[in-house]
């Protein structure tokens, strides 16, 4: 079934934040994440005759994942300097300003710890812990067998847990 314009608009509206969030966790850079998310969504439009709407969510995340890996590889070739262009801080005004700032700080801390992991560890953690993806969907996006995915996820969680504790992030 070809994807018409209305379906495309609906899918983008549903998936845009997920795609952006994933790219931001993977790249830890606001501009890069924005660019990658846009690129993924535009590629969906370009490939709309081949992507079934029911599979568009996984297709988008797989595209985003691959674009993120490309970007990380290019970064490695370019420089080893840590990336610090993070998401904008929330507004400081309002009754929930303190809580919002705390949550923003938590996000930054978690993001920094994530950056110390391999891209594979980061991908499985973000997909599972932040995007709430099922094992099947993750295995599809990452091209892994289910058993291999479970092992990868367990090991990534252990490494992440250890590093969060070391960084003093765990509440």
């Amino acid at each position, binding site marked *: 079934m070809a994807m018409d314009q209305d379906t495309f608009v609906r899918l983008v509206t549903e998936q845009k934040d997920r795609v952006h969030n994933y790219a931001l966790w993977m790249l830890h850079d606001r501009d890069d994440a*924005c660019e990658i998310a*846009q690129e993924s*969504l535009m590629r969906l439009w370009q490939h709309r005759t081949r992507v079934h709407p029911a599979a568009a969510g996984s297709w988008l995340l797989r595209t985003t994942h691959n674009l993120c890996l490309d970007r990380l590889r290019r970064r490695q070739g370019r420089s080893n300097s840590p990336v610090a262009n993070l*998401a904008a801080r929330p507004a400081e005004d309002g009754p929930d300003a303190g809580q919002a700032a705390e949550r923003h700080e938590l*996000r930054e801390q978690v993001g920094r710890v994530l950056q110390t992991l391999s891209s594979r560890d980061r991908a499985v953690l973000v997909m599972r812990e932040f995007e709430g993806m099922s094992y099947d969907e993750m295995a599809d996006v990452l091209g892994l067998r289910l058993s291999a995915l479970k092992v990868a996820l367990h090991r990534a*969680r252990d490494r992440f847990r250890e590093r969060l504790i070391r960084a003093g992030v765990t509440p």
Partner: protein
Amino acid sequence: MTQDYAAALVCHQARSLMQEALDGPLSPAERRGLEAHLVGCESCRSYGRELSKLRAALWEVPAAPLPRQALEQVWDKTIRRGGAPGWHRQLITWKPIAAAAVIVLVVLWHQLSAPVAPPAASPAELERLAADTRLVLQIACEAVSLAQRITAQDVLQDRVNATLKGIPIPVPGLHPTPNKEIRRGLDP
């Protein structure tokens, strides 16, 4: 059976089950085995507490929505562009046009390279030149029309050249029998 399972459970198996429990329910046997192991293993109980706290902390992390301006740019480059074609559509669109353009250039080159009458031509010669020019233009239009026979399948399977060779282009001087239909259209 459960007792056997619990007895066989070592720490790394118990921790693996605790991780799986984060993502979905365990089977009754696995759950009983894990509970039996935890009763006697403080290290794994501590691991389980950390795991739960980690999950709770991660759920607190706010999502980062795509900025509105970035979304507007996506609309600009997709639906607002009026149906930007995919790469395969682009191929289908520009390859036949490029092929037609090549045909037109060949025809024009052939006509222009032919000896041209001197400027001081007679009215009859001028009339003949005008007729030839009309003919060239008509042939060019015909070439464009014929190039449209190239199907998307030809483009995708890289068969454009083969298909072009199979299309007869009526060019006076290049073909022994000019296309009579075109001639008929030109003749008064």
